[in-house]
C-alpha cells in the first residue's frame, strides 16, 4: 500500500469516526431530555425511512444543500473562505421570483429565465467580497458576513415594500405564474425537475474542478499561491472567478428551490442552507462529486430530527449541535494525527523490510 492510499483510507475513516462521535453526543443529549430515549433515538435514526413521504423529504432537502455545498466546494478549493453562499441563495430566490411574477413566458422557457436570473444575481453578490479581496486585500470572511446581514434586511424590505400581495393576509409575494414553476417528477412527492438541474450542476462542477483548465487553476491557487503565480497563473482572477462561480451555483439553487417548492415568495429570514453548506462541503472534502452524498447525509439527519421533534419530545435544533461537532472534528488536522503518522511510518518500515528481503 502506498502512503497516499493510507492517507485516503485514514481520512475516510476519520470522517466516519467524527460522525459516530457526534451521534454518541446526540444520544447523550437525548438521554438528558427524553422520557423514552431509546424510542426517540430510534425515531431520529430511522424515522426518515419509515414512509415514502419522509424519504422524499430527505431528497427535497438535499437539493438546496447540494447546490450550496457545490458552491462552497469550488470557493474553498481555491482557499477562498467566503460565506456568501447564504446571500447568493437567499437573494437569488427573492429577486428571481420577481421574474416569475411580472414576466410572462411559455412554460419551460419561463423557468429557464428565472433560473438564469438566479445565477446572475447569485454571482453578482458573490463578486462583491471577491472584488474587495482582490482590490484591497480585505478579508472575504468578514466582508461576506456583513453582506449577509445587508442582504437579509434587503430581502425583508423587498418582500414587504415591493412585491407583497396585500390580499394574502401574511407577508407573501404575489403568486408565481404557473409557467415559471418546475414540474413535479414523482407523483405523491414534491420532488421536482430541479433535481435534474442539481445533477447537471454537480456534473458540471466536478468536470470544471478536475477536468478543465479553470478548475486546475483553482486547485493550484488553493494549494499554493506562490507556486501558482510562479507557474504563470493569474492568481487574482482565479480568486475572483472561483467565488463568482460559487455564487452562481448557490444562486441557481435559490431559484430552483423557489420554483420547485413554493407558489409565492414568503421568506422573511434566510434559510440556513448557506451555513449548512459548510458542513456539506467539508464532509465531501470539497469534491463536488461527493457533495450530493454529504448533502443527503445532512438532509437525512435533519429530516430525522424533524420527525423526532414532531413525534417525540426533542427539539429539532439539536441537529445544530451535531453539525457543529462534526465540522470541528473533521476540520481538526491534529485530531488523530499521531495515529495517522504511526500508520504511515509503520507501513514505510514494512515496505523497506520487504525490499531488504527481496535483495
Amino acid at each position: 500500500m502506498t502512503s497516499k492510499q493510507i492517507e485516503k483510507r485514514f481520512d475516510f475513516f476519520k470522517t466516519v469516526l467524527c460522525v459516530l462521535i457526534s451521534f454518541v453526543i446526540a444520544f447523550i443529549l437525548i438521554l438528558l431530555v427524553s422520557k423514552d430515549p431509546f424510542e426517540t433515538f430510534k425515531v431520529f435514526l430511522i424515522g426518515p425511512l419509515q414512509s415514502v413521504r419522509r424519504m422524499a423529504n430527505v431528497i427535497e432537502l438535499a437539493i438546496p444543500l447540494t447546490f450550496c455545498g457545490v458552491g462552497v466546494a469550488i470557493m474553498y478549493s481555491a482557499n477562498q473562505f467566503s460565506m456568501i453562499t447564504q446571500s447568493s441563495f437567499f437573494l437569488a430566490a427573492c429577486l428571481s421570483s420577481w421574474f416569475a411574477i411580472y414576466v410572462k413566458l411559455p412554460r419551460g422557457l419561463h423557468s429557464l429565465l428565472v433560473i438564469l436570473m438566479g445565477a446572475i444575481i447569485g454571482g453578482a453578490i458573490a463578486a462583491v467580497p471577491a472584488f474587495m479581496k482582490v482590490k484591497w486585500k480585505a478579508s472575504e470572511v468578514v466582508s461576506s458576513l456583513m453582506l449577509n446581514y445587508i442582504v437579509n434586511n434587503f430581502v425583508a424590505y423587498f418582500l414587504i415594500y415591493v412585491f407583497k400581495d396585500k390580499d394574502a393576509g401574511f407577508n407573501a409575494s404575489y403568486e408565481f405564474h404557473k409557467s415559471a414553476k418546475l414540474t413535479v417528477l414523482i407523483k405523491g412527492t414534491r420532488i421536482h425537475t430541479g433535481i435534474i438541474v442539481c445533477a447537471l450542476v454537480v456534473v458540471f462542477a466536478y468536470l470544471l474542478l478536475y477536468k478543465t483548465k479553470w478548475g486546475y487553476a483553482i486547485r493550484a491557487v488553493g494549494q499554493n499561491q506562490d507556486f501558482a503565480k510562479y507557474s504563470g497563473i493569474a492568481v487574482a482572477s482565479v480568486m475572483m472567478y472561483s467565488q463568482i462561480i460559487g455564487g452562481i451555483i448557490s444562486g441557481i439553487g435559490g431559484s430552483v428551490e423557489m420554483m420547485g417548492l413554493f407558489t409565492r415568495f414568503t421568506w422573511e429570514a434566510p434559510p440556513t442552507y448557506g451555513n449548512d453548506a459548510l458542513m456539506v462541503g467539508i464532509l465531501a472534502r470539497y469534491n463536488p462529486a461527493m457533495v450530493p452524498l454529504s448533502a443527503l447525509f445532512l438532509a437525512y439527519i435533519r429530516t430525522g430530527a424533524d420527525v423526532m421533534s414532531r413525534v417525540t419530545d426533542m427539539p429539532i435544533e439539536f441537529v445544530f449541535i451535531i453539525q457543529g461537532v462534526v465540522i470541528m472534528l473533521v476540520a481538526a488536522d491534529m485530531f488523530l494525527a499521531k495515529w495517522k503518522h504511526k500508520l504511515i511510518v509503520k507501513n514505510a518500515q514494512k515496505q523497506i523490510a520487504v525490499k531488504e528481503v527481496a535483495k
Partner: protein
Amino acid sequence: MPEEILLMDNITKVYANGFVANKDVTLSVNKGEIHALCGENGAGKSTLMKVLFGSETPEEGRIVIKGEEVKINNPLEAIALGVGMVWQHFMLCPSLTIAENLILGMEPKKFGKFGPLNMAQANKVAQEACEKYGFKLDVTRKVEELAVGNKQKVEILKALIRGAEILILDEPTAVLTPQETAELFVQLRHLKELGHTIIFISHHLDEVKELCDRLTVLRLGKSVGTAIVADVTQQDISRMMVGRDVMLKIDKTKAQPTETVLKIRDLTYKDEEGRDIVKGFSASVRKGEIVGIAGVEGNGQREISEIITGLLPLNNGEITIDGQSIRGKSIRQIREMGVAHISEDRMTYGCSENLSVKDNIISDRYYKKDYKQGPLMNNKKLDSEVDELIKEFLVKCGDRNEPVRMLSGGNMQKVVVAREFSGDTRLIVANQPTRGIDVGATEFIRRKLVELRDGGAAVLLITADLNEALELSDSLVVMCGGEIVAYFEDASQVTDFILGEYMLGLKRMSDEEIGRVCYD
C-alpha cells in the same frame, strides 16, 4: 595557555532526505577570542551552528562547554548554557520598543508574579545593558523606526541580556552599510574585552582578517582546519575554502553559440528597504551556450533571475528575449516567450507539495491549445506526456497521482526540471538547480542542462556551487555586491582559486575586461 570554552567534537549531521551536512566536523573555540567560521554556501556552517544552538540534533559527536559535556535539545537550553545566536533575519517585533523586545519572555513585574509589567525597571535594565556593552540606543524607541544596524544591535543585546557568553553571529555584515560594519566591529572588540567569546560567520575575508583571532574553515561538510588569522593571508584562506573534489565530471563539447537570446542592460534593483541589490548589471546569453553567474548567495543573483522571469518587476534597465522587451509582461507571457525558470526556493515556488506529480508537471502548460479537448483538458494526452516525462527524468514515485510531498528532495527537483526542461524552451534560467539534493539527481540535472544547450537552448546558470559553475559554464560571470566583478569568456581556463578570489571580493577586473560580457 588559552582556555577552551567550547568544543564541538566530530559532529555528524545527516538530514532526513539523506543529505550529509556535517561529517566529523570539529570546532574548538577559546574563551575571549573572536573565532571566524568560514566556508562556501552549503559547506555546513549554518548546520553546525544550528546544532550548537539546539535547533538540530546531531547523529554523532559531542559538545563540550566549559569542560562539561552537554546535550542541547532546544534553543532555550542553549541560552541557559550561555550560547546566544544573532540571526541574519532579525527575530524582532517591529511595533514594540527596544526595551520590550529585550525583556520579552523574562518580563520584570511589579507586586509579585502576577502583577503588571514594571516598564520602568525594564527600561532601566535595558538602558544599563546598553551602557555596559557600549551600545548607544534609546531603549524607549520602537524597533520599526530603527536603521538596520541598530536593529542588529538590539538582536545582539537580546542575546547578551540573557547571559550569552558565547555569541554566534551569522553573516552579520551582509545587511550592513560599511559605516555600520565598522561600528559593529568596534562593539564586538569591546565585547571581547569584556570576556565574551564570539563566533563570527563570514565570507568577507578582509573582515575576517581585520576582526578575528583564529579561524576554522569548513568545506563540503568537513572541517579543513583551524589557523591563527595573523599567520595566514587572505589568499591562503580562500584556497582552504574553495579547494574542490571533482566528484562529478560532466562531459561536454565546446559550445557553438549562435544568436543572442537574452540581453540584459543596466539592470538595477532596490529592495523594500531601499538598499541597492543589483547595481547596473549587463550581460548576454546566446543560443547554445551556458553562461554561469557564480557568486556567494545574496549578492543580487536571485533578484536578477526573478526579474527575468517576471516574479519581480522590471523597474530600471532593459531586458530583452529574442529582441522583445519583457517590460510590462506577465509571468505567463514571459514563459510563453520560451523562458523556463528553476527557482532556488523549491518548496515555495518550484512545486506545490499537496498537488500530484502530474499537477505539478502541467502547471505551465495545462491551458494550452494542444491540451484542449472541447471545453475540457485532454487528460489522456496530458497523462501520457506526464508518464513519459516521469520516465525520461527518472522521477521515482508511485505513480503520477502521488502528492509531491511524499517524494525525496532530489525527486522533487526532478519533477521541477521535468516541467521546466520540456516544452519549447529558448532560455533556461536555472537558479541553484542542484542545491541540497543527492549526487545522482545532481548529475542527472547537470547532464540535462548540457543536453539542452546542445539542443539549442540558451542557459543562464546561477550558482553558488563552484563545482557546478566550473563544470557547466561555457563562459562565466562572477558577482559580488550586486555587480559583476569578473568575466571569463572561456570558463575552462578558470581555476577554482582564481574564482574564489573574485567571489570573495579579494580581486576585481577592470571595466574593459568585464565589458566583453555583452556581445553587440
